[in-house]
């Protein structure tokens, strides 16, 4: 079975900097922040998933709701 989480090592000084940075923000932990930043960085290299314009996406969402696939 694949594990959902795994640790990564980062320099303690960097860890402390992040801790300072996220004080009072929506991030509850350094891991939350690091995960978000890394995902953003990686997704820039991934193929763009924006196939539909915002208007088209709304229209399709409504249709998929009506069809029962999503709600």
């Amino acid at each position: 079975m694949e594990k959902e989480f795994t640790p990564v090592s980062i320099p303690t000084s960097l860890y402390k900097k992040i801790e300072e940075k996220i004080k009072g923000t929506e991030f509850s932990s350094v891991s939350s922040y690091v995960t978000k930043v890394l995902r953003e960085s990686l997704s820039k290299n991934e193929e763009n998933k924006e196939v539909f314009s915002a208007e088209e996406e709304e229209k399709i969402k409504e249709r998929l709701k009506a069809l029962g696939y999503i709600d």
Partner: protein
Amino acid sequence: MKKRLLVIGLDCAAPALVFDRVAELPNLKKLMDAGIHGKLRSCDPPITIPAWMVMATGRDPGQLGLYGFRHRRGYEYNKMWIANSTAVKEKTVWDYLGEQGRESVLVSVPPSYPPKPVRGKLISCFITPSSEQAYTYPAELRQEIEERFGPFRFDVTFRTEDRSQVLSEIYQMTENHFEVIGYLLQDKNWSLFWFVEIGVDRVHHAFWKFMDRDHHLYEPGNPYETVIPDYYRFLDEKIGQLLEKVDDRTAVLVVSDHGAKRMKGAFCVNDWLIEQGDLVVTEPPQRGESVDKLKIDWTRTRAWGWGGYYARIFLNVEGREPQGIIRPEDYEAARDELAERLRAIRGPRGEEWKTVVIKPQEHYPELNGEYPDLMVYFDDLYWRSAGTLGYGTMYLEENDTGPDDAVHDYEGIYILYDPKKKGGREQDANILDIAPTILRLLEGPEVPGLRGKVIE
């Protein structure tokens, strides 16, 4: 000369409506008598997207990273993306055949919008925003089709109480599809011709309660009692006309992506999570409010869910979600404990449910994309999951997003007719078997890593 294969995809066609009524379906009966047929176990989840691509690639939803029509965008709370053709990264049978220089014609195999290049021709599927968009490959094919048959009809208007209108639209759409298919079948070169008729799924969802005496909303003597079997007879006639257009070296595969059964109701999973204390809101939900609009206190929320034919449950995990509160080291225990509670949910009259809870990490040998933490089939799929909430009850008689009578079932159908083989056999198969079967039949390459077995 190499064989050709015509794949007749009937979205949602159910064993009971084909095999048990085959005396009324002479063309399908001929194929059954001369071929192999059986129930086809769909993938998990048994839903149009990903099921057709599981068939076309021989890869399961975990490998494809496709778990339904929408997915979370990363681990954001409210960002999502709609499944489309670009999300399919694995090679399909027509990609492999194309590498051998062999052509395919593909009509409405979901998801096929935006139209991707193929060696051959392609018309996209019902997720196409409208016929105003480019929906063919090559682009010129669109004009060729529209000049002859008018704009391609991708879908019908659904969730209206005017059933006669829906029915008339379903027939018009299916007529339009078969005209286009009949034309392409004769006019184009192909080794593989694969189309999917979505009308079957639509007629089930709109008319199941009128036919099924066990449905809680069935009314004896209603005017739509025979709509579904009538539509199957109509399809059988249309299929007969197509079969007259193909030569005797053409093999035929009639196949569905999943089955259907009566819907018992919709279960409001987020109301349940609120009651259980897993989901904490800052304002009580409005009636019918979507979970996306719900005022959630993420700092106290452990889990939330999405609706559809199955429920997707997400845990709010520290280090993963922006305001996660479940510690990563507690993830497995928290998930197991929630799964246990989900399995114990009972029906509106206290009756036991056969709820299936799937942990993606254990279910799929390989896991890609944006999978949920838990996948839940309430009462063995009889109860759909409502993502909306605030109805004052967790049990809805109808779909939360409008009238619907049917849910999906695990087993679809297949009928495989090979002109070179003796038939008349019944043999159940798995949806993963379709890709290797097609490749063997068409003498395509041996593809390593396909788990399915050749149906023969």
